Every structure is written in structure tokens, then in C-alpha cells.
């Protein structure tokens, strides 16, 4: 009983004669920087600075033994989360990332107190202290974690995108992963299905140059990560991840493409982490000069500060912003330090949702 074949999509990518790679990059090259209003510029500055100060404080609390286990700081990479997430439709779109997740949560405007309290393992933490630095979620914001297994969030993000498509809610999924995760097999399994089914997803490689202690050139045969979607007919974009305006502009182009139902985009944001892979990494695999050079010449916050000053903001105004942010972060740290630990009775809650 032969049945007529029923394809998932009327036309598979392989049958599309119009397909051309890097078409998005061409459009991006035409105008690489987002034309932000002065209000937006200030907002980007404040948000990036909040991440920076929060992470510095987290590093300090770790040093004091208030934060345990693994703690991966986002310092240096702030422009990526802010540039991309500022372009999202907060009511519809979802975000998922790996274990270096504090910045992505702060980019949503989630209260720094509940994030810091999770880092210190307190009851008031966003996961009631049961998740920790690597496992934080906010379903209210459609932020789906916070995942500790390198690369797992890419396939899970594919599932979130499938849910957007299934529910026809018009949303897209933004799935972040690092240059290290880019060598996991499941990333490519997901690329294949995402392209085949035209899932609404933007894959973002945050290329911070080191997979833990291994420089990209020592672990990756193809270090131009944006090219890695080619085999799956996913258009790639190469973006300076140290420039929030460039990231935002790339987000505009990528999101438009995806929202038009044209399938996934692979975006590589070249960035740099100033600190070690985690707090326990002495980062001996690179020179101090290399790090200093990045801080001196590529820093995303200093870069934006320059623009703000050119636009007539005074040093004092910017200093006042910093002061306010330090205060917010200090309050978050105090809250996180003084909140009680979870009750012992929380040990067995939330293992399962239902009772059997």
C-alpha cells in the first residue's frame, strides 16, 4: 500500500535552487553598526557595566568561599549578550546557554539579588539554591538555562525552536555556545535538523578563543566557526563580539531572516574572556600581555564609553552610573551573603513534579 510521501517541509533545503551561503554576511557588511539612539547607548552601557561589576563581585565572593564549586565569569564578553538580547522580542523569544550564564540572565533584567543568592546557594536564589552558578532558569523570561554539559544546550535550543514553530507563536530561540562546544557532535546533529525543518533558531558561537585551556587553533580544524553551518546550508555571519553595536546590527539581520521562516542562522561572535575558564583556572596558557592588549584596545565597555563621551556625556555622568551600579551589586552581594540557606526539608522537594 504505497502512500504518497508526506514531507515535513514542502521543499527541503537540498531542493532550493536559490540557496546561497553568506548572503547575510553581505547584507551585514553593507552597514555593520547599529544606529542606536542616545538612550539605547546609555542603556547598553549600563547593562554591560552591570554584568562587569556583578562578575567582579562574584569573583570576589568566590575568593571568600561564599561561592563554591565551579564559577565561570563573563567578563570581557558583555557586548555579546547585550547586543543580541536587546534585539529580542521579550514576549515571544527564548534563550538558552551553557554554564557561563550570569551575563545572559542579567541581560534580561533579572534581579541581581536572586542571581547572586543562587551563586551563594541560598534559599532566595532563583533555583532555591539547588542549581548553582551553572543551573539557573527563568521560565517567566523564557530563559531556559544554564546547562552544565558542553553543547547540550544546542540540541535543547533546537527543541525550544521546534516548540515555537509547532505553536506558531512567532518566536525564535537564541542558542549560545562556545568555541569549545562547537566541536561536540550533537551541535551538528542539531544543525542538520534545524535546517531540514527550517526551525526558528539563531545559533551563536561565543568564540572567546579558548576552550578551557586549549586555544581554538589547537582544537578546531576550522576556526572560522561561522563557516561550520555550510555543510547544512545554514548561512553564517562573522561578528566583532567586542562591539555591542555591531552585535546588535547582526542580531537585527539574523532575527529578520529567521522570523521570515527561512530557517536557522549561525552567528560567530569573536570575543575574549579576561578571566580564567572558571575561578580555579590560573590561565597559564596565554600571556598577560595578550590579556592586557585586549583590555586596552578591545574592551567593549571602554569602547562604548568613548562613544558616549563623544556624544557629549561627561566623565562625571558616567562615573555616577558606575557608582549606582556598584551599589546595586553591593546590595546583591549583601543579600546573597545574608540570606538563609535552604531548609533541610528542601532536599527531597522538586525531584518529581507529581506524587506517585
Amino acid at each position, binding site marked *: 500500500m504505497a502512500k504518497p510521501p*508526506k514531507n515535513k517541509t514542502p521543499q527541503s533545503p537540498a531542493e532550493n535552487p536559490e540557496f546561497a551561503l553568506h548572503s547575510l554576511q553581505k547584507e551585514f557588511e553593507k552597514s555593520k553598526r547599529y544606529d542606536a539612539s542616545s538612550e539605547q547607548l546609555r542603556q547598553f552601557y549600563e547593562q554591560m557595566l552591570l554584568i562587569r561589576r556583578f562578575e567582579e563581585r562574584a569573583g570576589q565572593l568566590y575568593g571568600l568561599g561564599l561561592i563554591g564549586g565551579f564559577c565561570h565569569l563573563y567578563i570581557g564578553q558583555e557586548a555579546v549578550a547585550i547586543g543580541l538580547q536587546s534585539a529580542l522580542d521579550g514576549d515571544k523569544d527564548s534563550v538558552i546557554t551553557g554554564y557561563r550564564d550570569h551575563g545572559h540572565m542579567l541581560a534580561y533584567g533579572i534581579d541581581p539579588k536572586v542571581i547572586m543568592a543562587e551563586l551563594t546557594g541560598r534559599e532566595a536564589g532563583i533555583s532555591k539554591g539547588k*542549581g548553582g552558578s551553572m543551573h539557573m532558569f527563568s521560565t517567566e523570561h523564557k530563559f531556559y538555562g544554564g546547562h552544565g554539559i558542553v553543547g547540550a544546550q544546542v540540541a535543547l535550543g533546537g527543541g525550544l525552536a521546534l516548540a515555537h514553530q509547532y505553536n506558531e507563536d512567532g518566536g525564535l530561540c537564541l542558542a549560545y555556545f562556545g568555541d569549545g562546544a562547537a566541536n561536540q557532535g*550533537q551541535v551538528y546533529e542539531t544543525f542538520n535538523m534545524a535546517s531540514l525543518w527550517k526551525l526558528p533558531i539563531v545559533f551563536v558561537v561565543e568564540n572567546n578563543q579558548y576552550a578551557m585551556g586549549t586555544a581554538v587553533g589547537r582544537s578546531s580544524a576550522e576556526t572560522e566557526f561561522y563557516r561550520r553551518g555550510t555543510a547544512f546550508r545554514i548561512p553564517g555571519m562573522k561578528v566583532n563580539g567586542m562591539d555591542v553595536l555591531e552585535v546588535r546590527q547582526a542580531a537585527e539581520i539574523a532575527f529578520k531572516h529567521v522570523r521570515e521562516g527561512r530557517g536557522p542562522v549561525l552567528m560567530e561572535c569573536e570575543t575574549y574572556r579576561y578571566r580564567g575558564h572558571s575561578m580555579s583556572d590560573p590561565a597559564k596558557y596565554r600571556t598577560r600581555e595578550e590579556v592586557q592588549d585586549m583590555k586596552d584596545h578591545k574592551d567593549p565597555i571602554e569602547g562604548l564609553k568613548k562613544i558616549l563621551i563623544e556624544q557629549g556625556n561627561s566623565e562625571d555622568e558616567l562615573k555616577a552610573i558606575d557608582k549606582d551600579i556598584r551599589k546595586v551589586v553591593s546590595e546583591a552581594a549583601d543579600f546573597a551573603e545574608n540570606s538563609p540557606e535552604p531548609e533541610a526539608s528542601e532536599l527531597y522537594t522538586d525531584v518529581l513534579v507529581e506524587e506517585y
Partner: protein
Amino acid sequence: MAIEIKMPALSPTMEEGTLAKWLKQEGDEITAGDIIAEIETDKATMEFEAVDEGTLSKILVPEGAENVAVGTIIAMLAGEDEDASDITAETLATNDASGEGKDVGRESSEAEITKPAKKSGATDPEVPHGTNMATVTVREALRDAMAEEMRRDERVFVMGEEVAQYQGAYKVTQGLLDEFGPKRVIDTPITEYGFAGIGTGAAMGGLRPIVEFMTFNFAMQAIDHIINSAAKTNYMSGGQMRCPVVFRGPNAAASRVGAQHSQNYGPWYASVPGLIVIAPYDASDAKGLLKAAIRCEDPVVFLENELVYGRSFELPELDDHVLPIGKARIVREGSDVTIVSYSIAVGLALKAAAELADEGIDAEVIDLRTLRPLDKETVLESLKKTNRLVIAEEGWPTCSIASEIVAICMEEGFDHLDAPVTRVCDEDVPLPYAANLEKLALIDTPKIVKAAKKVCYRD
């Protein structure tokens, strides 16, 4: 205000270290990010960066000092507006113990006390008198369960290899594509890790995926998502993020397919908190429990058996045949010995019980049906009655469900035992291909009969 600089913890396990070198001296201006000292841990020498700005007013721990405890104040920093010379060690606050917040006074209690009591009393719903009993295969029962739940809830969909156009590698999804269309019956490429992750993510995103593995042998490629992504999500998120996904497919030995295609994963998944694991035997349980699994808010591993797919059983024709998860079923009542079993071995146990009856031994047969959470009560109640217990499991004996039942009987049923609890499992070898060796390796009825007679001291 003066800022205390404390000995940092530079790794998750560091408790103390050596202050190898001060790179800044008293009176030096410090900006955030400056390396102020080198600290040796048991693993490495680490650079210690300043977080705050100011003037290094006082060094309290000299370089070369060994065994400096984490949290010890090693120096003081004066802020912009104060005179560095005003800062003295006397102004220092009392040092907190490392690793502790200011949450003194919390009562610690035994973890076990906090464990909630298991909800009991869930029983199979009564089948109304006069209900027609249809004869259906397990394969049809599973298909009907999925179809009924897909009609009931728009969020339910099936994905997997060959589930749609091919109508299922084992024909369990036969007809679903025609009724529900390609949006809800999705053929995937051969990419278990990837589609298990996509299914799990879709559940996080609010859908109700049924992820079919052609067999659970291939799910080993995907086990990370089943355990790390699905099982742990609700707990890690403090109850915020649910993952109502069903992973189903045939499990355990089929026939002559060799070692890589013949393994029972029941014990693997049943060891993981956060998962529900179901392994039914007959058509009625297959249907009723699969429907329950699809409605369940928790992630479920649903283990079927290829050799049982084609077997026919009686099934009550009800509008909505849903059975309770976590409840074993006594499939044959008896008083002399209990045979605990699940999945395909239930059939072997029933045959064994019939043979034992011929020899005057009245065996009670329990089908566990759910492997996690395990229905201890039903097992222990039966043990109280028979005082002898055998476990029949088609799977390896080591770290098995059988081992778990033995442990439960030892810990909670010891006083009722008149003989050692005995495991009857497969042999502890990869399953061989040769017909004679395969037969030797697998559990069979004579082995169960022998074990039951042994615990009854009858030979």
C-alpha cells in the same frame, strides 16, 4: 571605608595556601584588575587580582607565609577618600569562618527525616461490570494509547526514526501519520543524541513530546539528554522548569541480534532520581500506563519489549483506560513463594507458577510495572505472606532491579524471610549470537522453577 582583602579560595577544594609573593607594596595605588599577589595552591600558582580600587594601606600576612587559611585578612585597602595611614589592623572586623555566610542559628537535621512519605493507596481503577474485554496485541495497545492522547491534547506529538512514512520500524506508530499529519508525527534522521535533545527542549518549551527510540540500545547515544537534561531539570531549577517528555521504544533482548542490540536498560534508568521508569508486560498495562506517562508532568522512560509486541491480551474497552504509575500488580495470587518480575519475564514467571502448581507449590507472581518509583509495599506485603521470594528479570544480575529488590527485602523484610532471596537473571555475559549460547544466556522458565523450589527447600 577601608576594604579588607582576604585570602581567596582559588579552587573548589582549596582550604589554605601559601602567600608566595606580594606584587604590590604598602602605599601602592591599586586599580581593579591589578595582580597584587601570587598564591600557591596545592595545584598551581595563581595570580590574585584586585577587585576594588584604592591604596594598599597595610599588608597583614607577609610573603612566604604558608598554610594561610582561606578567608584570612591578608591586607587592607584604603578607598579614594581616606588616608591610608589611618587604617590599622585594630579596625578589622571579626573574621567569618570560611565557607559560611552569616546564617548562624540554622538547625541541621537528618536528611532522611525530610524525605516525604510515599503516597499510597493508588490502585487500578475498577473495571465496571459488563465491560467488554477486547483481545489486542501490545503493539496495538501502545499505538491506541498514543492516538487517544494525541486526540485529547494538541501538545502531544511523536518523533523518531521511521515513525511516520515507514509507519514505525516495529509498526508501533502505524496509522498515526495518516490521522495526525507530519507536524505531529515527525520522521527524524538517524541522530539519537540530537533528536533526544530536541525532544527534551520541546518539553521544556511547553510541548508533550513522545520520543521513540528504534530500540533503547541506540538511546545510549542520547542518554545524556535523558539524564542530565530531562531528569535533573525540575530539581536544578527549584521546581521552576518542567520536562514532561516520554522516551519510549523496545528494550532488552530480542532474538539473535547479538550483544549490541540486546540489553535491558531498566536498572540504568531506574537508578536516576528525577525519572519515572515504566516497563509493562501485557496490553492492558501497556496502554493504561503509556497514557498515564504521556499525561505525566515528569520525564518518563517507557521500556517496551519487541518479543511481546505481537502477543495478544485482554484489554477492557473503556473510553479512558489510564492506570496508576508506581503501582505493582499481583498477576497471580499464591501463598508459598513470591516471584517478582517485570516486562517479558512476567510471562516466564507465570509459566513457572503453573508448573510449580503441578508440584504443589502455590506461587504469587508480582508484575512491578513501574521500576521507578518502585512499589516496595506490594513486594513486602507479599513477602509477609509467603516468606520466600525470587526475582525473575530478563537482564544482567549485577546492579539489577533484582539486586534492588534483594536489598529492600534485607532492609525492610528480614524478619519475614524463611530463605535467602534469590535472583534469576540472564547470565553475566554480553549476549552471544549462536542460538545455543543465546538460549543458555537468557532467563527461562526452568531456571525460575528451580529457584522457587530451592527457596521452598523442595528439590
